[in-house]
Structure formats: structure tokens, C-alpha cells
């Protein structure tokens, strides 16, 4: 029954322990609404046919609702609404009270990506691995504007606010890949701020985590690269910070408003106008002076020209800095568009 309703209502798979609770109430409300709505529609229709005025003006009887009917008009819906409110609030408290033994994950929203980190490492961008059958507590915060962490299949949503933590918890019930969306408007790429939750069997999760700890394919470590920089590259970093380059370009491999600088130097980049270009000194310099000439595919042509704002020495330093940003290991797997086909069972 509930499976049928779920399909009729286009609800995604109920993949968390919260989802059936939310859905049950959802079905209760929807079914009641449709029964009463059909009743109202039918009543209106019957009245329309039965009492339709002919050409001559008929005199309608004088009638006023008796007091008991007026009370019923208010009382019956109120009873239903309060019942739903109470049932919903019960589930809401449950959904916002994480169990003590829950696994903590720190979630940081940032224009326009999600970062996940376990207290003892590792940290990931765009993919959150969780074990099934285990409560997971998310501690959300944001680094810029308000975002909202939303997993439709889990029926879970919580805003990530800058400067404070919010928390929510869920328990995935079966392995699979579930899409994460940002539900609070956060700017240009709001609609592309996606990530995914990968739910693994507890055993598989432990194996994954152990492997990640020993040889992280990619761990976030801002500030670590500083010690490795040469003097010119270090100066480039200062220039990048001062000129605001880092507001659009990341250093950690995540695409932002502009392409990431990590591993950029020497890479073959596809262009929006078709074709591709190798990101060498000439291209990087041109992009600073006339950014709209060759825009990398997938990015908006929004970069301002730095012609006249950067001295030759600064340009050199910047390029040296970008050169220094080579991933030590093979590049982290790009955040792929998750495959949302039927879930493997």
C-alpha cells in the first residue's frame, strides 16, 4: 500500500530510518486531503447541477448555519490539524535528537560544494561515505552564505549557517548512492551544488575508512603546502590572496567560480568556444590580462581583467605559485555526477 502511494506521489526511495516515518504522515495527510477535496469538488458539482438557476430568477430560501454547524466547521478540521501537528512534532523531535553513539561527521557548505570530514580524518569533497544501520550525526556549518543539506531519499534537510553549527542525524538503511542537493538559494551555481552520500555496509565502510587513513587519495590540508613553496611561489600566494583570486579559484582541486589551480599548470583544458588549450605560461598570462578571450568550458565568463592591476613581477610570482600547485599523488577523482539509475539491491 505505502509502496504504491510512494510511486504515485513520485517520492524517492525511502532509504533512511526517518523516511518511513515522514512518509506515513505524508500519506495520512495526502489521502485525507484528497478524500475531502473530492468531497468538496463533488459537492460543488452537485450543487451546480442541482441548483443551477434557469432564466427566471428563483428565490433562494433564507438559512443561516446553526451554531453547532459553525462549531463543527472549526472543530473538525482543528482536530485533524492538531493531530497531524502532534504526530509530526514527535517525529521532528526524533529527527533532531541524535543518539549518543552516533558517528559524527562535520559538513561544511561553501559556494558551491560540500566538504565532509570525520573527526579523525579523512576529509572528502563531494562524497560522504556512511555505514548503513548506524546513526550518523551531521554537524553543519558554512563558510560563506546559508546552504541547506538535503538528501531527498533520506527525507533529511538542515540549513548550514555561517558562524554556527546546526545538527541533524540520519541512519541509512541500505547501501546505495543517494544524491545530496543544496536547498537554500546560495548564488550563481546553487543548482549545481550537488554531492552524494555513499552508504556502505558497516564492514565495507570500516575497510574504506582504514584505507583512507593509511593512504588518503585526497585529504584536505590547507596550509600544509606553504612549507613546500619556494620564495617566488610564496610571494605568488600572497598576491593571490591580496588580489582576491582565491575567492573564485580553489587550491584544493574543487571547481569553484573558476577552475581550481591545483594541477592546472600544464593541463589540457577544454574551451567554451570549442577546442582546447594547454595551460602554459602564455595562456595563464593571457587569462589574467584578457580573461574572456579563452574561457574554460563549464565556467561563466565572469572574471575581471587584471590588466594594469598586476605588475609583471606579480604575474610571474602568480604563475610560479600556480606551477607549484601540483598534486603529489594522482589527481583526486573528480566529483562525478552520481549515477541515479535504479539502485543496486
Amino acid at each position, binding site marked *: 500500500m505505502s509502496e504504491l502511494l510512494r510511486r504515485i506521489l513520485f517520492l524517492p526511495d525511502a532509504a533512511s530510518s526517518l523516511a518511513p516515518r515522514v512518509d506515513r504522515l505524508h500519506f495520512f495527510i495526502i489521502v485525507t486531503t484528497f478524500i475531502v477535496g473530492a468531497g468538496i469538488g463533488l459537492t460543488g458539482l452537485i450543487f451546480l447541477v442541482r441548483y443551477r438557476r434557469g432564466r427566471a430568477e428563483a428565490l433562494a430560501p433564507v438559512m443561516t448555519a446553526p451554531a453547532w454547524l459553525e462549531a463543527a466547521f472549526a472543530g473538525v478540521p482543528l482536530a485533524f490539524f492538531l493531530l497531524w501537528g502532534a504526530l509530526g512534532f514527535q517525529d521532528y523531535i526524533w529527527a533532531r535528537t541524535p543518539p549518543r553513539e552516533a558517528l559524527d561527521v562535520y559538513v*561544511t557548505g561553501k559556494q558551491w560544494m560540500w566538504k565532509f570530514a570525520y573527526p579523525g580524518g579523512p576529509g572528502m569533497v563531494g562524497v560522504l561515505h556512511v555505514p548503513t544501520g548506524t546513526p550518523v550525526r551531521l554537524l553543519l556549518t558554512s563558510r560563506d552564505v546559508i546552504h541547506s543539506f538535503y538528501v531527498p531519499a533520506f527525507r533529511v534537510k538542515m540549513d548550514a549557517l555561517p558562524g554556527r553549527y546546526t545538527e541533524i542525524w540520519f541512519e541509512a538503511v541500505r547501501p546505495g548512492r543517494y544524491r545530496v542537493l543544496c536547498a537554500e538559494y546560495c548564488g550563481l551555481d546553487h543548482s549545481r551544488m550537488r554531492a552524494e552520500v555513499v552508504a556502505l555496509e558497516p564492514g565495507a565502510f570500516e575497510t574504506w575508512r582504514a584505507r583512507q587513513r593509511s593512504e588518503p587519495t585526497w585529504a584536505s590540508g590547507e596550509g600544509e603546502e606553504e612549507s613546500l613553496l619556494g620564495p617566488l611561489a610564496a610571494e605568488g600566494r600572497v598576491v593571490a590572496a591580496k588580489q582576491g583570486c582565491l575567492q573564485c579559484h580553489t587550491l584544493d582541486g574543487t571547481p569553484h567560480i573558476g577552475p581550481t589551480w591545483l594541477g592546472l599548470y600544464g593541463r589540457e583544458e577544454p574551451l567554451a568556444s570549442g577546442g582546447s588549450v594547454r595551460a602554459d605560461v602564455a595562456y595563464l598570462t593571457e587569462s589574467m590580462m584578457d580573461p574572456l578571450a579563452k574561457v574554460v568550458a563549464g565556467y561563466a565568463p565572469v572574471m575581471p581583467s587584471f590588466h594594469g592591476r598586476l605588475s609583471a613581477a606579480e604575474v610571474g610570482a602568480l604563475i610560479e605559485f600556480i606551477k607549484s600547485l601540483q598534486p603529489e599523488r594522482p589527481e583526486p577523482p573528480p566529483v562525478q555526477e552520481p549515477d541515479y539509475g535504479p539502485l543496486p539491491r
Partner: protein
Amino acid sequence: MRGGARHGGVQVLVVGGVLLGLAALSFGLSRLHLGAWAVPVALGIALVKAALIAGFYMHLTERPGGPRLVVGTAGVFVVILVGLVLAEASARIWPTLPPGPFPVTRLPGKDVEGPPRVAPPWRQPP
């Protein structure tokens, strides 16, 4: 006009005297450092003063009906706004605000990397 004669200058002066007295009282009480009671007492005195001004200087005593309804409604909605916001905020689980320090002396131009943010959570677990 209605009741115009009743409100002589004497009455205005008497009410004015009371107002000045209450202001002095409020100031005096603030020197006593009443602790938790300071705000309620000060607001209470302010309310009395406001009622006196509204009633006598703003002619509310002469105008039953509409105006009193309006003032009462406005008062109720101020209480609703302040009250519900406070009720909600005081029930939040603290500390949802990560501990400081907030850079209070930030001047424009100093913030090169946008607004200041707390340390990443993996460095500073609460």
C-alpha cells in the same frame, strides 16, 4: 470640543511633574545596581511614563474606541514579536554559536579573504 476644557494647564503641569519625578527615580534606581531586576524595573517605569503621556498629553483619555483599540493592538504585536523571537532563541541548544574570538576590530580592507570564518571543524572539534 469634547473635554477640551477639562484638561487645564494645571493638569499638564502635574503630569509633567510626575514624569520628571519618574525619570529621576529611574536614574536613581540604576545607581543601585539591581542586578536581574534592573531591566524589568526600568522598563516598568518607562511603561508608566508612556501610559501617562499617551493618556493625558496625547488625549487618549478623551478618545475611547478606535484609538485605544489601535494602541492596544500595537502593544500586543510588539510583545508578540519580541516575545516569540526571544522564546525561540532562548530554547536553542547552546552553544550553537561556536566560541569566539570574533575579530571585533576588523576594519574595511583588512579582510582579504571575505568574511572571517571559524576554524575548520576538523581542527577545532567542539
